[in-house]
């Protein structure tokens, strides 16, 4: 009796990191863009995320953006601060150094603010991506 060759497509199952590694990746990602992916050995993503988010953040500052201080007096102030602070240590170090005073009269002030907001918001997405990878939901 002749037996036929069985072809079977094998889809790799993403591995799940431990609880500690997942938490470490998320915290590292919140502090430094891309560091969470670096801990998960996703070096290509880590380099791209760090480069892109840092470039956007510093370009924003170069365009005279204002770094919004922790201010919980009104809803929009909270949103602006949350978006800015999403960049993690990039925000806190720059803020402590007194960078990002902002110049509303500058031509690119609004653009600069958008650059800084979006850098922070992208970093939040990147942290969620690191979490998904650590949980084995994606490769």
């Amino acid at each position, binding site marked *: 009796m002749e037996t036929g060759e069985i072809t079977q497509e094998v889809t790799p199952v993403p591995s799940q990191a431990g609880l500690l590694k997942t938490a470490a990746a998320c915290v590292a990602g919140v502090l430094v863009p891309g560091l969470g992916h670096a801990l998960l050995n996703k070096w*290509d*993503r880590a380099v*791209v*995320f760090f*480069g*892109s*988010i840092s*470039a*956007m953040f510093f*370009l924003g500052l170069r*365009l005279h953006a204002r770094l919004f201080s922790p201010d919980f007096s009104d809803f929009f102030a909270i949103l602006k601060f949350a978006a800015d602070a999403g960049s993690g240590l990039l925000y806190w170090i720059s803020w402590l150094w007194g960078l990002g005073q902002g110049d509303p009269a500058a*031509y*690119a002030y609004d*653009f600069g603010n*958008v*650059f800084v907001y*979006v850098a922070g918001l*992208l970093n939040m*997405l*990147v942290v969620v*991506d690191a979490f998904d990878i650590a949980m084995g939901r994606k*490769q």
Partner: protein
Amino acid sequence: MNNHFALMVIFSIPVSLVFTFIAKNGAKERIRYFFFLLGSFILLSILAGWLMYPFPL
């Protein structure tokens, strides 16, 4: 830099890069998706600009 269009293109590049690396795996797929996103950003921004042109009426 006093050029809205250039600033918009500069803005689009890192945003497209991050979305590409979040959404896609594999070099070929990433390159295609990156240029698709970048092109979409630029074309839709120009379109939105023209749609807003008559305002305020």
